[in-house]
Each structure stands twice: as C-alpha cells, then as structure tokens.
C-alpha cells in the first residue's frame, strides 16, 4: 500500500473514526471542522501531482486485494483521473466547509451526515483512479448506496425516502448493466485492467460483443449522469440537504457517468454507434433539461434540470469528440479532439458555477425559509454578497463574458458546428441538427439563468410571504465557499490557459491516446474575431432576453403538454403495474388450495415422464419372460380391483375404511402367492392396526363430522389421475421387460454361512442391511412421539368449550 493508496482510502478510515469524534467533541466543536481536513489533505496531495502529470506522465501503483482472481486495487492516475480527483477533493473541501454553517450541530445527526459524505467521497475518488474494472464497479455501486443514504438523510420525510428509492432503483439498474458490459469486455480481452484493454482495442472492435458491451456500459453511464430518459431521479434527489445536492448532484456523482464515457472513449470511440448514442442522447438531454428547467418554480428543481441539461451538453461534446478516434493524427483529428477539450473544460466550469449556485440557493433557503420563486423577490439589497455570487454563477451558466461559462459555451458551439460537418458516419445528414438543437437549448439555458437571477433578487420584497421574519445576509462562513467558486469562475475566464495547460491537456491525451503533450495545440482565447460562434452567442442573448420578458405570454404553452406523457408518470405507473402484475400473477397460481398444488405436481410428472418415454422412443413391451397366471391369482386380483373401486365410489366413510382394509388384506394374499411369508405377516398386522386407527379417528369424530358425503366429481381430477396411472403402468411395464444386469440375489443365499440365519429376508434386514432397519425403527419412534405429542399437547385457547374435547 503506497502513500497514494492511503490518501485515496483516507475518507474510509475517517468514516470509521468520525462517530467517536462526534460523541466526544460535538457539544463544543462542530464535527465538520474535523472532517474538512480530509478533503483538504487529499486536494493538496493531488495538487502536488500536477507538475508530474502535466508533462504527460502517469502514476501506476498496485495493491493486491483478491490476487487469486486477478482483482487488485490498482491506481492509475493520468490527466483525466487527476482532473476528476481535483474536482472531487476541491469541491468536497468547500462543501464540507459550507455544511459546517448550513447544518445545525444541535438539531442534526451530524455523525450520520459526515460518515455518508466521507463514504461517498472515498468511493468517488477510488472510482476515478481505479484501473481494475471490478474495483471500479464496486466503488460505482458504493457511490449509489452512499448517495441513497444522503438523499434520505431526513428519513422522517416521505418525499426524501421516495426520492432516495427512485435514485437507487435507477442508478443500480444502470450499475448492473454496466457490470454486464464490463464483464463482456473482460471476456473479450481476458484482462481486468483498463490499461490492458486500451492496448487491445482492435481485439474489442472486431469482437461480436462490441455493440452489446458498448450499449450496456452506456446504460450505466447514462443512468448515473441523469441522461434522457433516465434523468427523472435527479430532480427528486433534491430532497437531500443542499450541501449534498451541491456536491453529489451537481459536481461529482452525476459526472461519474461522464467520467466513464470519457474513460471508455479510447475503446469505443471512432465508431458510428458510439457517436450517435453518446452525441444523440447528449443533445436530447440538453434540450429536454433546459426546456423543463424554465417551468420550475422551486429553485433547486430548476438547478436540477439545469444540471441535467449541462450534463447533456458535456455528453454531446464527448460524443462528437469521439469522432477524433476515427482519424490518425492530423488536422481532422484536431477538429474533433477540440470537442473533447471543450467537454473537459465545461466539465470543470460546470462544477465551479453549479456548486456556487447550489450554495447560493442553500443560503436563500436557510435565510428566508423557502426556495419557491413565487414567494421570493427583492433580495438584492438585503443579501448583496449572495446576489453577487448568484450573478457570477448564473451569467457564467448562461454563457456570458467575463465568466468561464462564456469560453466553454463558445467552444461548445465550435464543437457542435464541427459535428454538422461529419461526413464519414451513417445518417450523416442528421448531424446538421446538432448545432440547431444546441443553439435552441442555449436560448432556454439563457432564459432559466435569468429566472434564477431575477426572480429571487429583483422586484419587490415580499416579507409577508416568507416563513422567517428577520431576513439578513448569510454568515461569513456560508459565503466563503461559494465566493471561492465565484472567484474561480472569473479567474478561469481571464487565465484559462493556466488550467488548460496543467490539467485539461493531460486529461485530453488520456481520452485520445494518439495525442501527446507536444501535439496538443489548443489554446483558449476569449476573443477570436467575429465568427459564427460569436454570432450564435449574440443571437442567444437577444432571443433569450426577448423571450424572458415575454415569459408570461408563452409559458402557458407548457400546460398543454399532458402529464400522462411525462417520464415520471411512466416510471411510477410502470412500477405500480409491475407490482400489481406480479401480485396478481402470483395470486393466480398460489391459490392456497392443496388440490391445485397437487394438480401442478401430477401434471408435470406426467408431462416429463410421458415426454421422455415418447422422445426416447422407449415404449417397447416384452412379455415373453412373464410368469404364469392361475385362476386363484385372477380371483384375488378381481377382488382387489373390486375393493379399490368400492373405496372410490362409496358415500359412506365406514364402507370406505373397511374396503381399504380389504385392499390391504388382499395385498396379504398377493404376498402369499408371491412367496413372501414375512411380508404377508407384517402386512396383516399393519393393516389391522391401520384400520383400527382409521376407525378411531374418523368414526369417533365430533358429531358435525359424521355426515355422509359423496366425493364431488371433477373431470380434471379424473383425467389427471388416469394419466398418472397410465404413465406409471407404461413406465413399469417398459422397465420390467429390460434387465440390464444380473441380480445379486445369489449372494444372499450365503445367509447361513455368513450370518447364521436360515431366513434370508430376516438376514438381510438385521445383518446385511441392518442400517436400514435401525433408521426405520427411528422413523417409527419419531412417529410414535409425534402421535403422543399431538394427542397430549392440546391448544390452550381462551375459549373454554375446547377443553372438553380433550
């Protein structure tokens, strides 16, 4: 275990200790102060790796976990992993810091909160640095589980529990699909290491499992990253405490899917199916999220849909950029690699401004008691600092200068425009849709960004509508983390290439393996002349402003859209139907009636045996070796059949019992004519005892039981019992005609020499096979004890009338 392993696993170790610290110190010091050290240490340690990684180096460290299965916790840190690691630990530090002021130390169960948060942080960090696909999957699911715990942090609320369950079902569904995809990959390449898979790309590309593996892995990535149509869990996950929404549902967990797509691009990229699935789903999610966001009245729901939309943006860029792998090194590759570059840049930018915006919303919620934009307004002069941060965040998200969102939005348009020129994949005519959808979605993005900014902060202040009375600026501690993020937003605009050179370029070369640090030419410039991208941005601003002013006029159009077509309706209706369907299916055959279960059993016996007999063409009879028949035999047999039918047809219980006794005694006769004296004697005694018991139990039952009842005739019963009888007869007839081996009977004729007995059957019972007899005695003993207990242990109920029946 190396130092880096220790650093990555640090959150897990801390999660063990935190409850003790909470118990000891929480009365005086907020537990968050102890927690905040951990992401800070990780951030510093990872930041120290930047000089190494930025030269194009990678770090590979191994730690055995299950070496016999080839599953090891191998850490592979390249530019991509480092980019994510920095986001996770950096935003993690700020979020924990923010939560110290957001979460009340007296009212909240902070030990739970920080343990879940640390578990999540450790899982997420491990996920991005893991080289082994199974470790990656394990940590992937751990992020789902810890996210589930965090969403339902206020578990006494019904909506929290519902949101957590939904997120769990959807992300675990995707996780399992991803596991299947990863297993397919390991089957093709015969390795669990991602690096070795990259080395065997041609093997994967030529495999027939290429498409299934790709689709399954993409389902995992799409569910985690809330892509259409799996996006429905994200708005409901907003029931979590705001620091969690800021951390998990904007900056880190939802980017796990982005990470997976970027990670897998070297394997699947350069392929039309990948291009269309990632790029296509990306733009659909982009437009879906931005249009839905405009409708929301809850600030967090608005941010949730905006996250969905922005994730779609990044995903579509990754899809377009994957075309770079279609080319060898050259200008054509550079055009599409630029889209990946834009994706990584926007990924970073989104984490900064979305984190800041969530924290701003948290502050508004914390200080006013509501997040409903219909009740908020005029907060600008009351919360000037919060307003400044909100201004930076939302304008950056809208894509305006001088904020980093402007840069990445311009690059996004460049990427989408290059997508429209693709002429080497199938369905190439459709690629013209990419820039159009992107532009329309940007207009909506601009509108909801303005809503986010204008509705709470401008207009009239409505103190009577707010739950809290004294509204004032948030404490400094709550403002510091969003202020740092806001400062980053501005700084990146002015010095984008610092970020690009040290972090984004190494990340790019790990997505496109053909490139090296020397060949990556990209430089981010804020001003690049009057090009199409700039005109598109101006268009967005103009149209967006017009639509925002006129929002009340066209907003009604959303109401036309029926709720029954919404994804949420489909999901909850689907779950309900599934539950009802399985319940009614089970109730249909699990009737509780023994007769039905017996019917199933007998029908299957007949089906299986009958099919076997017919399929193997086994029905051949051989009667040549049969024994002779005498008149006595016929008489006994006829009597037996008569007795059996009497049992069947009689109405009277007594007659049935006596006829059953007759069958038993006729069995004695059969044993006599078949030369089995011991059997005859035993059968006689047993039959007598059985008949007596029958009479005891059924003749001396309470009065109400003594009625005479004919058996009800049912055709199914008749058919099934006849079928079983015929099947068994045929089967035994077939079997008796064949003798595969000579019997070992002659051995038992040594009974006298070996056992000193003249009765061979008795010698077998007590000597040759005495073990059977011993256990048969045990059976009788147990039956005897059972009978005794049943008779003796009476139900001591409250009703006194039963006491008399003892």
């Amino acid at each position, binding site marked *: 275990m190396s130092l880096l392993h220790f650093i990555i696993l640090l959150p897990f170790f801390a999660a063990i200790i935190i409850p003790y610290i909470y118990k000891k110190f929480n009365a005086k010091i907020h537990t968050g102060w102890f927690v905040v050290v951990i992401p800070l240490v990780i951030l510093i340690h990872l930041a120290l790796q930047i000089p190494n990684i930025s030269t194009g180096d990678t770090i590979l460290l191994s730690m055995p976990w299950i070496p016999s299965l080839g599953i090891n916790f191998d850490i592979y840190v390249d530019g991509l992993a480092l980019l994510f690691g920095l986001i996770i630990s950096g935003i993690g530090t700020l979020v924990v810091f923010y939560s110290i002021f957001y979460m009340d130390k007296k009212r909240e169960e902070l030990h739970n909160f920080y343990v879940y948060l640390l578990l999540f942080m450790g899982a997420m960090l491990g996920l991005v640095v893991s080289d082994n696909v199974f470790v990656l999957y394990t940590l992937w699911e751990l992020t789902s589980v810890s996210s589930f715990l965090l969403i339902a942090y206020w578990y006494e609320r019904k909506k929290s529990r519902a949101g957590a369950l939904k997120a769990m079902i959807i992300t675990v569904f995707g996780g399992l699909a991803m596991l299947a995809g990863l297993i397919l990959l390991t089957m093709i390449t015969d390795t669990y290491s991602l690096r070795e898979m990259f080395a065997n790309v041609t093997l994967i590309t030529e495999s027939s499992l290429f498409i299934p593996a790709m689709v399954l892995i993409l389902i995992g990535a799409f569910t985690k990253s809330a892509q259409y149509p799996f996006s429905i869990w994200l708005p409901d996950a907003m029931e979590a405490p705001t620091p969690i929404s800021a951390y998990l549902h904007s900056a880190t967990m939802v980017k796990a899917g982005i990470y997976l797509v970027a990670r897998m691009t070297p394997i699947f990229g350069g392929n039309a199916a990948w291009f269309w699935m990632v790029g296509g789903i990306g733009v659909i999610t982009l437009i879906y999220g931005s249009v839905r966001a405009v409708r929301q009245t809850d600030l967090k729901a608005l941010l949730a849909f905006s996250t969905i939309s922005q994730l779609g943006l990044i995903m579509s860029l990754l899809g377009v950029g994957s075309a770079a792998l279609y080319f060898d090194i050259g200008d054509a590759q550079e055009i599409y690699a630029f889209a990946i570059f834009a994706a990584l840049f926007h990924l970073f930018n989104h984490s900064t401004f979305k984190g800041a915006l969530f924290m701003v919303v948290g502050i508004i919620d914390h200080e006013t008691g509501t997040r409903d934009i219909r009740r908020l307004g005029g907060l600008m002069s009351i919360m000037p600092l919060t307003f400044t941060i909100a201004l930076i965040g939302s304008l950056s998200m809208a894509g305006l200068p001088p904020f980093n969102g402007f840069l990445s939005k311009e690059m996004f348009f460049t990427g989408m425009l290059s997508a429209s020129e693709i002429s080497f994949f199938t369905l190439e005519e459709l690629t013209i849709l990419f820039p159009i959808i992107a532009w329309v979605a940007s207009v909506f993005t601009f509108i909801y960004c303005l809503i986010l900014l204008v509705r709470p902060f401008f207009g009239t202040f409505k103190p009577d509508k707010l739950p809290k009375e004294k509204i004032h600026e948030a404490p400094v501690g709550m403002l510091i983390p969003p202020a740092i993020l806001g400062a980053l937003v501005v700084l990146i605009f002015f010095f984008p290439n610092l970020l690009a050179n040290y972090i984004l370029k190494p990340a790019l070369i790990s997505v496109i393996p053909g490139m090296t640090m020397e060949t990556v030419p990209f430089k981010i410039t804020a001003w690049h002349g009057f090009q199409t991208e700039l005109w598109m941005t101006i268009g967005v601003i103009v149209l967006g402003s017009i639509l925002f002013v006129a929002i009340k006029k066209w907003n009604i159009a959303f109401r036309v859209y029926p709720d029954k077509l919404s994804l949420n309706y489909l999901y909850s209706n689907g779950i309900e139907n599934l539950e009802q369907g399985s319940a009614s299916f089970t109730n249909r055959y699990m009737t509780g009636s023994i007769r039905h279960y017996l019917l199933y059993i007998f029908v299957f016996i007949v089906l299986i045996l009958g099919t076997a007999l017919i399929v193997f063409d086994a029905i051949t009879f051989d009667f040549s070796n049969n024994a002779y028949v005498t008149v006595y035999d016929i008489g006994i047999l006829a009597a037996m*059949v008569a007795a059996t039918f009497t049992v069947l047809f009689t109405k009277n219980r007594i007659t049935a019992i006596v006829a059953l006794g007759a069958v038993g005694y006729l069995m004695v006769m059969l044993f006599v004519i078949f*030369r089995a004296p011991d059997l005859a004697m035993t059968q006689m005694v047993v039959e007598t005892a059985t008949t007596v018991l029958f009479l005891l*139990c059924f003749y001396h039952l309470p009065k109400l039981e003594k009625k005479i009842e004919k058996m009800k005739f049912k055709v199914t019963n008749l058919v099934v019992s006849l079928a079983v009888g015929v099947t068994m007869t045929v089967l035994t007839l077939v079997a*008796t005609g064949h003798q595969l081996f000579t019997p070992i009977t002659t051995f038992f004729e040594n009974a006298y020499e070996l056992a000193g007995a003249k009765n061979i059957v008795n010698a077998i019972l007590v000597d040759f096979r005495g073990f059977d007899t011993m256990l048969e005695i045990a059976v009788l003993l147990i039956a005897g004890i059972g*009978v005794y207990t049943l008779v003796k242990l009476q139900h001591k109920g409250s009703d006194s009338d039963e006491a008399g029946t003892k």
Partner: protein
Amino acid sequence: MEYIILILAGILFATAIYNLLQKQLLRIIIGTVLLSHGAHLVILTMGKLKRGQPPILDDAVTDYTDPLPQALILTSIVISFGITSLLLVLAYRTAQENKTDNIEEMRGEPNE
C-alpha cells in the same frame, strides 16, 4: 403375470391420486395408503414373480425368489405405517381444532 400386476398397480395409483385430489381429510389419507400399496406391488414385480421357493434356506431347494425386494418392501411397509398413523392422528386433531375436515376450509389469514 407381471403385466397384470403392473396394471393393477396402475389402477391403485389412479385411484390413490383421485383420492388425494379430494377435499375431505379422510379421502386424502386413503389416497396415501393406496399409493403405498401400489408402490409395494411395483417393487415386488421388478424383482420377478413366482420364480422359485420362499427365501427360507433349505437343503432341498436350489431356486429362491428374490429376497432383496422383500426386505425393501418390509422396510417400506413399516415406514408407511408410521407415517399413516401420524397422518391419521394429525388429521383427527386438525378436524377437532378446526371443526371441519374439509381441507378447502382450512385457510390461514392473509399475510399470516
């Protein structure tokens, strides 16, 4: 002879199962008894019928019927007797407690 006995065993099976599918407890137990009779007959027939003398050693006899199936049936008779008696007492007690011997009426509470 064998095929006649096996047809008889088949009749026993058919009637046994017809009884098992009824709803009175008595009929069900009668079904189990008939079923074991049928099974014993099948075991006996599989060991060949009427081929020699009873399996008691005697210097004058050289051909004995197969003693092994007889030993197996003897074990089986005793075991089925044990089970039948337990079933009978169980049925008796069940009918006594529930005031009915109709198996369709013996239902637990839902979600019990």
